[in-house]
């Protein structure tokens, strides 16, 4: 018992350092990884798309895409993976860790930047560093796709209005002939300044294994 304990800790040690999860959390997530991948080493997009609970989520494509996005791996690469391993899975999950009592101010700042970066990457699909109007429109369309009869034009109008807001708040003195190219990461940060991302965008990763607690539930 003792030997296997230390061995698994060793295995997960560098994962813990990279992502900041605790051993129990990593173990739980590993179990989930295996469930999703069907006990394989890697997960592909189909595995994730088959999760029934995600079917009602309006932005599932973007969420799934985020897992395969190399930019979320913090290694300054671009492009996307075909399949991801457990380490990449964890890296993406680590964006959603909540701050604890011990998190210092700078760590909070970095956390906030990371989370904002995650959202930014979700929008910026062509990876040019800015969210253009087209990209924003697409995002708003997807977001509103499940809710009522707003239609494409309405979504476009809303996206336009949102872009205008960003433009007017970030570039208040635009000359008559300028046009606003797109939302850069700094502008993005600026408009979402008041949201306290680090406290709101998080998931409670459980230390306890809940898979056994849900009786009768197969992999979902």
């Amino acid at each position, binding site marked *: 018992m003792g030997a296997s304990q230390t061995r698994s800790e060793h295995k997960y040690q560098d994962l813990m350092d990279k992502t900041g999860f605790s051993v129990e959390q990593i173990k739980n997530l590993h179990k989930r990884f295996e469930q999703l991948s069907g006990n394989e080493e890697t997960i592909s997009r189909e595995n994730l798309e088959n*999760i029934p609970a995600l079917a*009602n989520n309006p932005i*599932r494509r973007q969420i799934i895409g985020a897992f395969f996005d190399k930019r979320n791996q913090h290694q300054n690469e671009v492009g996307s993976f075909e399949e991801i391993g457990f380490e990449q899975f964890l890296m993406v999950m680590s964006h959603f860790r909540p701050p604890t009592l011990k998190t210092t101010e700078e760590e909070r700042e970095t956390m906030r930047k990371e989370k904002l970066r995650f*959202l930014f990457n*979700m929008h910026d699909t062509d990876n040019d560093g800015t969210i253009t*109007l087209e990209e924003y429109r697409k995002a708003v369309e997807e977001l509103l796709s499940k809710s009522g009869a707003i239609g494409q034009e309405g979504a476009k109008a809303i996206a336009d209005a949102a872009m*205008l807001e960003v433009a007017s708040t970030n570039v208040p003195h635009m000359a008559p002939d300028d046009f606003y190219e797109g939302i850069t990461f700094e502008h993005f940060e600026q408009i979402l*300044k008041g949201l306290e991302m680090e406290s709101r965008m998080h998931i409670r990763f459980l230390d306890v294994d809940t898979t056994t607690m849900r009786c009768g539930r197969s992999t979902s």
Partner: protein
Amino acid sequence: MDVTIVPPIKPDDSPQAYPDTEKANLPVFTMNYPRIQIPFEITLWVLLASFAKIGFHVYHKITIWVPESCLLISIGLIVGGIMHSVHEEPPAALSSNVFFLYMLPPIVLDSGYFMPTRPFFENIGTVLWFAVVGTLWNSIGIGMSLFAICQIEAFGVQDINLQENLLFATIISAVDPVAVLSVFEDVSVNEQLYIVVFGECLFNDAVTVVLYNMFNFVAEMPVVEPVDVFLGVARFFVVGLGGMGFGILFGFVAAFTTRFTSKVREIEPLFIFMYSYLAYLVAELFAISSIMAIVTCALTMKYYVEENVSQRSCTTIRHVVKMLGSISETLIFFFLGVVTVTTEHEWNWGYILFTLLFAFVWRGLGVLVLTQIINPFRTIPFNLKDQFGLAYGGLRGAISFALAFTLPENITRSIRPLIELINVRRTNRNLDTINVEIHCRLMEHTIAGIEDLCGQWSHFYWKDKFMKFNNRILRRILIRDSRAESSIVALYKKLELQNAMEILDQVSGDISAAPSIVSLYEEKKTSAKPKKKFMAADLRNMHDILSKNMYKIRQRTVAYTRKNALPNDSQTREILIRRHASIRRSLRPGSFQTAAVPRSHKYFSLPAGKSLDSKFPPQRLSYTGKPLKPPHLSLSRFKVRNTLFHTVFNIAYSVIKHFEFKVNLLAFSTAFDHISLPFSMSGTCSGVYLHIVPDLH
């Protein structure tokens, strides 16, 4: 013999032409005071109190140094003094029934109706924890310590027994919601803190009811058995859950009723008030927590009702709720002042000081211990500064008294500098912008999605489930036109409408110069058709768009603004002004890289030679990233005084009146059985309550 009947002969010594002093004549001018006495006096009192309120704002500087409630109380004192010197009795109208049945419900309805629901439900565990366990801890702790103090002969208060001490402690330990709201709302302390204290005040009503009844009951028995403790706990659940149950029931019934009121728009607001009042009364009938009933009713009802009723009714409801709450509060303070002077007091410095000391100590300890226990269960734990805020915010009643009476004037500044000093985490109030709304939704969906991915549940999961249930079942039943509408869309529509109104307002007559919002939609409508001037067709288009966008627009409730006026639009207005300017400025050809943005029609509609900027100088504020302060906040900054002085007389009163307890205890206990005691509104209630109780018998 004939009997002749002779008609009566009028005495002819009195002239008929002029009225006689002996006859009853047609009065030209009469007075009948007793008939109208009661409504007349009520109206006069209300008017007098409201005049006082107006008067304070006439001379603005007063409200900086002294909070409004204190001024009201002092005016009441003056009036009471006058009445006392004339040996007139204070209005007997202020009896316990009047207070609990007529004055308290509007205030609670006001708080409940404008409560921010989302943060509330996210923190419900913490709220309940603090409300239940915290109140228990505080009341028992303070009661015991005070009882211990009473045993010391030096203070001369041995005659107060344990039960009375406990009762008193129950009152003192409750949190005053009004004070809390004033403080925290003004300082924009982080949302978590705010909602926990606020929720705590509303919910410890249930606890105090049970505690009070329990202490009363227990006092009469020689021996306390475990059965009784168990029954007490059971009673707590009955009281709390029963209150909530009734509230939800009435809320649903109200929502259902409004589904059918489309033909009787004028009386729509009536239903809201009747149903919530009914909830309150029915809860009182069963001696369960009526405050919880009315709050839950308002919470449940609001969401569905606001979708069913017309825009006008919606505004009316909000306005009336605020108005009633404000009137009630004004009246209560006023009467407190009046009644203070006209009755006898007893004062005991030692007792009072110890009360405060213990309140302070136990509250602080309580918050520390409870937070330690619950922090592991919270995703965002409370740090030490938050805990201080919690403790301090909950102490308003006791501290205010101390500060008012025993400390020099300048220390009673307020909680604000203290909070700034210790740098409690503050929230930037969310601006009502589309971007923020979009990204909030995005974030929530992302988190829900990732949670599904991880297979781990948290409150987002439950929220998601509830929303699905809501959309599929509840909305179908309760809402007339149950198409789901995203909040993003609702917000957008609202902003667009206001933008359009803004434009029309600015122009006011000279429509030909108005930049047309048509231009935003023209892309898909027509190709670039240069127009020489603003034609009727444009007007028609504008009307079209306005009417399209006006469908089911609802104002979003501004979060936690109980104390200020109705949700005011100055924030959105500023954003709209900016947007307006930016529409003019940035809708140029080639902007946004879209293919065919026609030359904006609006430029053609200007008088030749002028630029837009000369016609409409931008009125923007520079956006530097600081949170915009709506105008009303600068006034409420000084309402912070409320927190200290607000409950001054109330708590002082409760202390004073405590001594009458022992005289009237027997009579009280019978009266108490009939009334449930919402001690949680201690700031306003306890003082009044404790005053009026002596009058009961």
